[in-house]
């Protein structure tokens, strides 16, 4: 070629191209995101290493009424022996409750969120993109589920589910199946508007099938709502887990979970606030952390994000 080429590229590639890369970029660029990522790691560590940590503390999940005062409240607050204090009425070590509770809550919260988001995105996107009878079937099914009194379904399930059935799995499936319509509706709405854009049309004109269009054209433009919805779904799934356990569908006592501990602790928020504060704050922290990291990922994925460093 004879003539000089136009100005060189040179501009640093703006946006990360995959979610893990975006995560890495977000963590590197922003201290706030980094802090929150560390919080997530710490809490996950607490869940995984609950046995180890409680062994260090020297406590377990055994009730011991000797830890209690005359009214059934903890005799004393946090101490070297009981890091977070103990549970009213039973005297079970609160740190152990929070640490072991993290296992159930994180597993169920994350897996159920993942299930409902994956289902919701796939179903919602396909409904919005393919349209026609499939869209109608999806909308109807979603409406059925949204209008369905899942409470009595849970009660029925609690009555018929055998004790031996793996409870965590049951909860994940149930929560996932009841959770997808919301995600699907959001994704469908976005896709309805995206499919009318030329670049999506271009991809199908090139011969791209639905799957190609979904992964290459739609998905990258759906990350923002997906990330936001999933990071907000996690805490509600953890809360739902508590409700399910309450109805007998969830984990069986004495296995703790945050949701359950928090819902029992609410009644004590005036007399024994620490009982609520420890699990509550952990749940708050991890929710916040997931959202901050989610935002970081969203920003890192956005090529138009202004004023990047």
């Amino acid at each position, binding site marked *: 070629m004879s003539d000089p080429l136009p100005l060189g590229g040179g501009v640093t590639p703006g946006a990360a191209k995959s979610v893990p890369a975006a995560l890495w970029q977000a963590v590197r660029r*922003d201290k*706030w995101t980094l802090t929150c990522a560390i919080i997530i790691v710490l809490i996950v560590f607490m869940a995984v290493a609950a046995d180890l940590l409680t062994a260090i503390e020297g406590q377990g999940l055994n009730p011991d009424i000797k830890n209690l005062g005359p009214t059934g409240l903890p005799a004393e607050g946090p101490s070297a022996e009981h890091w977070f204090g103990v549970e009213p009425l039973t005297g079970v070590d609160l740190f152990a409750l929070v640490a072991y509770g993290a296992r159930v809550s994180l597993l169920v919260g994350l897996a159920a969120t993942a299930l409902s988001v994956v289902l919701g995105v796939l179903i919602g996107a396909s409904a919005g993109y393919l*349209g026609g009878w499939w869209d*109608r079937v999806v*909308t*109807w099914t*979603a*409406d*059925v589920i*949204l*209008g*369905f*009194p899942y*409470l*009595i*379904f849970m*009660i*029925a399930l609690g*009555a*018929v589910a055998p004790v031996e059935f793996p409870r965590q799995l049951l909860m994940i499936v149930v929560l996932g199946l009841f959770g997808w*319509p*919301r995600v699907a*509706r*959001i994704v469908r*709405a*976005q896709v*309805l*508007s995206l499919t*009318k854009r030329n670049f999506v049309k271009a991809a199908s004109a090139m011969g791209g099938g639905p799957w190609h269009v979904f992964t290459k054209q739609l998905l990258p433009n759906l990350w*923002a*709502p997906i*990330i*936001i*919805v999933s*990071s*907000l779904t996690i*805490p*509600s799934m953890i809360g739902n887990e*508590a409700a399910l356990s309450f109805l007998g569908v969830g984990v069986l006592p004495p296995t703790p979970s945050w*949701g359950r501990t*928090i*819902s029992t602790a*609410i009644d004590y*928020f*005036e007399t024994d606030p620490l009982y*609520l504060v420890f699990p*509550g704050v952990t*749940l*708050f922290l991890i*929710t*916040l952390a997931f*959202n*901050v990291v989610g*935002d970081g990922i*969203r*920003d890192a994925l*956005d090529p*138009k*994000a*202004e004023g990047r460093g």
Partner: protein
Amino acid sequence: MRVAGFIAGRFAGMLLVLLIVTFVTFLVFYILPSDPAQLACGRPCSPQSLELAREFMGFNSPWYQQFFDFVGGIFTGRTFGSGPSAIHCPAPCFGYDFQNNAEVLTEILDRVEVSFSVAIGAAIIWLITGVGLGVVSALKRGTTVDRVTMAVAMAGVSMPAYLAGMIGITIFAFALDVVPKTGYVPIGEDPVQWAWHLVLPWLVLAFLHAAIYARLTRGQMLETLGEDFIRTARAKGLTERKVIGRHALRNVLLPIVTVFGVDLGALLAGTVITERIFGLPGVGKLLVDGIAGLNLPILLGVTLFSALLVTFVNFLVDLLYGVLDPRARLT
């Protein structure tokens, strides 16, 4: 023409959804190994008396028969028992609540005002604050304002409704004593008292729900602000407020309206926990009491009612898509 066809199609779909919901509820109810007639049997409950109760309430026929009876009752009405003590439930009969001696439809309609008052008031508040906060934190991305908004929003979502309600009532109704503790005053009776009694439930619900609106608004807003038409709007000399509030916001509304539809549909059909805490006799409370009393007619009625609302609200939302984004119109 097309609009009419579309609406007719959706309407048929709605009926189908309702039928399915009813059917599934019926099925689930029969999975429950319990016996609603037990409650009407008394103590001690002899087998004969149980059988009588069952027969009277129509629980002795097979479940599919009961399902048809129920659906039939909507069109033709039903009669339970015979003689002077027979109970008539005129069409449209959505079942008869034997525990409370009332037609289910009447019971629901009696409580609709409460649930709607709670839901709509709260929805307005959270929509405005949620979207408002979302816009602010999008514009102030990465600043303290953004982060504080985020933290408050997260406190809202990670808090169980029950806790938020109890804390709200403890602080505002007891410690500060600025709002009434419980109760409901019909709007027709005294609008000021009506609002006054509902302020706290509204705020609590709004606090719980606003987060997702704030977050979605923020995310979508950031996407939209990079579009070329925003530049055009600025080039016209529009104030930043108009650029954001008109040009950007309209393009952000699609997911917001979607979630709103889902949330509102569910809320109108009853906010169980809030209604209980604040002693509001709404549909949600009816449902919980129905569940506690294994009151199948109530369960079915409320289920149908809530499914109706959900489908209807979502239908409106689907219609709204076309208005919000003309490209996505009715196809």
